[in-house]
């Protein structure tokens, strides 16, 4: 491996940029790929699949074996709203291997006692989210029920390549939300990215059950093939 490739692997990880290294096993010929390079690579399909499963793998092409090293940034969930449901999500996210962070400008909610071992940012979304960075390996969830807080967060999420956007609220609440966001200039195709009512329909009632349905929906968005293809195309 060229020292330059090793440095780029390490730098990409530090900057949360996805990348891949393809090695021809016969002779060690290598190529380093950014997400943009992958679109044009002959192994594009295999690369997308490897990213979807987040697994490095050997692939065979015309009798040659290649090893694809995948380096995807750690998956994150940014939750807007330090509420009961997000408390349950924090524990589940840990089990599922996500870094979860909570944003809520209401300091009474966004306290460390309510969220032990979780990063809590007690700021408005337009302050907090640009600093945290919404990228293609981040899921965004709006749970405050308060348009003053949720809307600016959703607007930033819609302008970002984040792989999942969900918003709590009934169909009626969501219809009003869509109206507001349309007035703010978002097209129908953009707004279709918002999962609402949020979560897979498992009949959840308690905050923990709702958290479970949200985590399941995030998992499905990440792992099901059609959606993963889109994730790979959206880029970092």
């Amino acid at each position, binding site marked *: 491996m060229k020292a330059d490739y090793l440095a780029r692997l390490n730098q990409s*990880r530090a900057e949360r940029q996805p990348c891949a290294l393809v*090695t021809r096993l016969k002779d060690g010929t290598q190529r380093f790929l950014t997400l943009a390079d992958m679109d044009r690579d002959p192994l594009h399909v295999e690369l997308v699949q490897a990213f979807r499963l987040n697994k490095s793998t050997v692939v065979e092409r015309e009798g040659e074996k290649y090893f694809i090293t995948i380096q995807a940034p750690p998956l994150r969930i940014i939750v807007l709203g330090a509420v009961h449901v997000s408390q349950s999500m924090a524990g589940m996210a840990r089990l599922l291997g996500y870094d979860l962070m909570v944003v809520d400008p209401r300091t009474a909610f966004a306290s460390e006692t309510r969220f032990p071992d979780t990063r809590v940012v007690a700021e408005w979304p337009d302050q907090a989210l640009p600093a945290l960075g919404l990228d293609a390996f981040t899921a965004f969830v709006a749970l405050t029920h308060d348009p003053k807080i949720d809307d600016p967060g959703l607007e930033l999420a819609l302008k970002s390549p984040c792989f999942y956007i969900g918003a709590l609220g009934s169909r009626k609440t969501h219809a009003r939300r869509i109206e507001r966001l349309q007035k703010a200039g978002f097209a129908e195709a953009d707004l279709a990215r918002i999962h609402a009512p949020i979560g897979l329909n498992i009949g959840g009632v308690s905050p923990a059950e709702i958290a479970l349905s949200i985590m399941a929906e995030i998992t499905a968005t990440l792992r099901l093939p059609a959606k993963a293809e889109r994730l790979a195309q959206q880029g970092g």
Partner: protein
Amino acid sequence: MTLSSDDDILSEAEKWHQAGRGVAIATVVETWGSAPRPVGSHLVIDEEGHFLGSVSGGCVEGTVVTEALDVIADGKPRLLEFGVADETAWQVGLSCGGKIAVYVEKVLS
């Protein structure tokens, strides 16, 4: 020294190389059956035989380190396979019954 992930191991490999040490990276590229470490796991070796990380539960690291010293010396990558298919397996094999392929390459300036 404990490193939390394979990623940290690659950072360490870069530091070793920058410090002027001869460095090889061993990577699990394929596994069959039950294997102790997943595909993508790294072991980093320097010219004096110091190493970090793991490619198995410890069963084949000794052999990988020995091979890595050759890789550092001649710069040519090698693909090593380990299994329990033969008599010598208990020496350089996997007691868990799995089989793994490990790619060893030098960090080139």
